[in-house]
Structures are given as structure tokens and as C-alpha cells.
């Protein structure tokens, strides 16, 4: 890998379909380190980029649900049986049925908290600076621009950016920009 100051080459496309075609073609030519940017989620992109299908967020949501539910049950049990036992007419200290409602609410709360943190981290957020923001026209990616970035650490990137530009040119992009590091 070359020690260059470039982050990669960014090409923009006019629509989701031409973007998807370019991505599929680039992948088939061995370009593995691609980043794709679009103003809305595009069906089929996950398959084209071969992003693994396993859903980490779902596991974190489950973990949060279990933590919130079991944790709240434990807290209520500890408080009623260990920390401050109160004998009310010989009833059992642990009133399990009455412990359920608050625990249920904490299931929702912690599932959402864990899930949201997992969503942000899995998407690489928060990250206020990114090299791709250096390209002026990239600001259109959040309204009507579709972009493909071939990262400089791509194994098939090579040292020759000219040939890469030629390759990208074959997919009729609207523009091609170098992304500074």
C-alpha cells in the first residue's frame, strides 16, 4: 500500500440504479474497500457490497432487555428481602407479581438504550470529521447525490490514480474527485 496523502477517489452518479451498477462492477473487478453514500437506503446495496447479514443490533437489544428486566427484578427483590424487609401480615417479602410492571418498563427502556448505542457505534458514529467531507460536492449526498468511494487502502487501488479514474469513467459518473486525507 502506498503512503499517499489521498483518502481515495470519489465518483458521483445520477441515481440509485447507476450507483448500484457501478458498485457491482467494481466489486467484480476486485475492489473490496468501497464506501457507498446515498440520500436514502437503497435495496440491494447490502448484497452488492457483501455486508455480512448478522444483526448485531438485535443482540444488543436483547442484552439490554434482559439487563433491564432481570436487573429491576433483582433490585426489587434485594430491597424487599435483604435491605429493608417489612412484614405485612405475614405476607412473603418478595411480591413477584407486583414486581413485574416496573421490570417490564425497564425492559423497554434498556433495550432501546442498548440498541441506540449499538446502532450509532455500528454505523461509526459519532464521527464529526471525515475525509469525504473535504469534497465540496459531497454535501449533495444528503439530498440528491449518489457517491462511490474507492479507498486508498483498497488492495486493487494501485499507485496509478489515472487508470482508476479511467475505470470509474466507464460507468458514466457525473464527477470524479480526489479525496484528501
Amino acid at each position, binding site marked *: 500500500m502506498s503512503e499517499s496523502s489521498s483518502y481515495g477517489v470519489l465518483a458521483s452518479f445520477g441515481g*440509485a440504479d447507476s450507483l448500484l451498477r457501478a458498485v457491482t462492477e467494481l466489486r467484480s473487478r476486485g475492489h473490496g474497500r468501497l*464506501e*457507498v*453514500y*446515498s*440520500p*436514502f*437506503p*437503497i*435495496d440491494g*446495496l*447490502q448484497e452488492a*457490497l457483501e*455486508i455480512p447479514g448478522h*444483526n448485531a*443490533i*438485535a443482540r444488543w*437489544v436483547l442484552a439490554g432487555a434482559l439487563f433491564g428486566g432481570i436487573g*429491576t427484578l433483582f*433490585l*426489587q427483590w434485594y*430491597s*424487599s428481602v435483604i*435491605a*429493608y424487609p417489612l412484614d405485612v401480615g405475614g405476607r412473603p417479602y418478595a*411480591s413477584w407479581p*407486583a*414486581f413485574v*410492571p*416496573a421490570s*417490564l*418498563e*425497564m425492559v*423497554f*427502556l434498556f*433495550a*432501546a*438504550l442498548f*440498541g*441506540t448505542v*449499538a*446502532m*450509532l457505534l*455500528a*454505523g*461509526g*458514529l*459519532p*464521527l*464529526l*470529521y*471525515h475525509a*469525504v*467531507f473535504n469534497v465540496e460536492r459531497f*454535501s*449533495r*449526498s*444528503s*439530498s*440528491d447525490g449518489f457517491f462511490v468511494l474507492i479507498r486508498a487502502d483498497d488492495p486493487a487501488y494501485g499507485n496509478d490514480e489515472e487508470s482508476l479514474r479511467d475505470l470509474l469513467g466507464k460507468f458514466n459518473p457525473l464527477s470524479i474527485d480526489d479525496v484528501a486525507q
Partner: protein
Amino acid sequence: MSRTASSDLSLETINDLSDIALDHRPRRGWWIAFLIAFALTVLLVISVVWLLIKGVGIWGLNAPVMWAFAIINYVWWIAIGMGGTFISAALYLLRADWRAAINRYAESMTVFAVCVAGLFPILHLGRPWFVYWLFPYPDKMDLWPQWRSSLFWDFAAILAYLIFSVLFWYGSMLPDLATLRDRARSRGRQIFYGLLALGWRGEARQWLQLERWMLLMAALAVPLVFSVHSMVALDFSEALLPGWHSTIFPPFFVAGALHSGFAMVLLLGIVMRYSFGMEAVITARHLDNLARLLLATSLVMTYSYTSEIFTAYYSGEATDIATVEFRFSGAYAWVYWSSIFCNVVAVQIFWWRSMRQRTLVLATIASLILVGMWLERLMLVVTSLYRDFLPSSWGMYYPTFWDITTLLGSLGLFAFLFLLFVRFLPIVSMHELRKLLHQGEALP
């Protein structure tokens, strides 16, 4: 379904929506509404300060009616929130794509309504500065919450619901905040939206995670809505009071919550549609669908009201029957019959399609339902308390000046927050609309 208006929707129309937040010079109508809302918010602050100085005695509470406006307002506001969550979550799971145009402001409505609702139980505590005693935290007083009380369950429910709503609202707003960041022209706004957007880039990986997260959150939100309002209902039905001690209360409260929530979504939708010229986004079809939803919830309400009367007579309990009869013809009978008229009778006009297409009719009925649902909570709270088991503990309830100012102030605070939202945040889920436009199917 009518798709007549959908041809007006394009990527440019969607992008123009972001300019509503980026426009530097708000219109005169916004300023007038904002000043009124601000004045009412100041009125709320004054009422709360006076409450803190003098105590809850400034309200009309007295034996036997110890719960009144604060609880009524609380239930009313949190119920309004339910409608927003239901629209954004349940309709998401049902793949009812038409929701994409209205879910953002419906969710915002939820967040603000829950914020306003949360104030009332705290103010009602008597010594609100000890509100942290509700939390189970380690302290030297050996102080623990009463886990077996529905009041604690309700506290857990509000806390969970508030935080959940904020997360759901904010997470699905990230791509739209990025749009505002990229389209903002002034440096200050670029930084403001840049920080809020957390560096969203619309990367394939980010979209994938966001969509997975949306699905999971929606799946959690639906049971959450039902559970939260069930907890609110349990505040009442855990008591042994006739008129409150009823197993139908949780589902009855959930239906009532959705009823008033949809009414508020409809009303705000009409207001936004005309003040921002959003006819291409919030179409006649949205208003029609909301009217149909109101019709459906009103039928559930009718069933619940009928079932309450039936159960009272079927039980043969003299006090239960007396409570129902006091509602029919007692001192507060006008409250009962007004709420029946607003929630059950007036809505039936929506059976006619032509009525569902008239904005004035839609806005009038939605307002009637909001008033009716507030009166219904007044009926439930006050008419159950003012006639207890013993005639010696009977008494009337009259609101005071401060009861009224607090209610008006809460409306002002909600409007204040909502007006700030339409001014500074993306009022429509632009990324979802773009996806719909791309798929070109079932456009809203």
C-alpha cells in the same frame, strides 16, 4: 387510494422541506403564534412558582376530591403522546407507507406531550423538590420506593416512555439533520446541525444499521405504548373506589389515548399543511386515513363506555350503580354527556367520505375530541371521588384560578416547544420520503 397529489412530490419538493427550517425570516403567523405560546408558558412558570411558594392548596383540591386538574392534565397529555408513537411505530411495522409524511411531527408531538405530562405528577407531589425520592438510589435514610404501588409503576412507565420517545425521534432524525447541515448557508447553522447530525454520511453501512434499528425500535414501541397507558390506568383501578376499580381500565385507557392522540395528529397536520404549503406531502389521503382511525377508536370507546355501565348494573353493587347514576344525572352530568357527545356522537360524521374531505369539519371534530377526552378524564377522576361509599364524605370540586392558569400554561408550553420544532428541526422524515419516491410505489 387516491394518488392524485403524489405527482407533486419530487426530490426537489422534499429538499425544499428542509428550507422551512433553514429560512432565516419566519413568517408573521409564526411570530404571532410564538408570542401567544410564550406568554402562556410564562403564565405556567408563574403558576408553578406560586405553587412552590404556597403549596397545592392554591388548587381546588380538598377532601374528598384530592385528585383533580393535575392528574386530569397528566393523563390527557400523556395520552396525546401515545397517538404519535402508534402512528410512527405500528404503521411502520404494518408497512403503511403513508405514515412517512406525518411520522416526524407525530413523534415530535409525542416527545413534547410527554414532557408536559411529566410535569404534573411532580407538581402534584406536594413537595416537588423531593421528586428524586421516587428513584431507587442508595441513601442513608433507608428509603426505598413502594414497589407494590401502581404509582411507582407509573413513574417507571413515564421515565421509560420519555427516554424511549426521545431516542426514537432523534435516531430517525439523523439523516435529515445531515441534510440540514449540508444545505445550511450560515456557519452557525452548519455547526449547530453538524453537531446534531453526529457526522452522518449516508454510508451504506449506516443506512443498514439505521433500518435495522428502526424496525427493532418500532417493534418495542408498540407494546410500550400499550403498557405505559395501562400503567396510567392502574393508578386508578388499583384503588377500591367505585368507578375506578375496574379491570377494563387498561384497554379502555389505551383506546382513549389513541383517540385523543390521533385527534391531535390530525389537528396539527391540518395546521402544518396550510401554514407551510405542504399539500404535496401531507395529502388529503393522510387526513382521510386519520379520520378513519378516529372512527375506529371511537367505536372502541363506545364499547368501553357501554361496558362500564353494563358491568355496574350486572354486578348488583349498590355503590357501583350509584356512581353510574350520579354520572348520568349528578352535579357533573354535563361533563359526562359532553364527553359522550364529543368522543362518541360527533365522530360518527366521519362515516361520510365527503365529510372526511372537508378540512373545516376535520379540524372541528378533532378539536371536539381533544376537548371531549379532557372532559372524560375530568368525569373519571372527579365523579368517582365526589361520591364515595359514605354520604358523610361527599363533597363538590371547583377549580380555582390557578388550576385554570396551569392548564392553559401547559397548552402554551406544548405549543412553544412545537413552534420551536417547526422552526429549527426537519419537520418531515425526508429520507423516508426519498425512499418512497425511489420505489415509486404507493406514494403518499
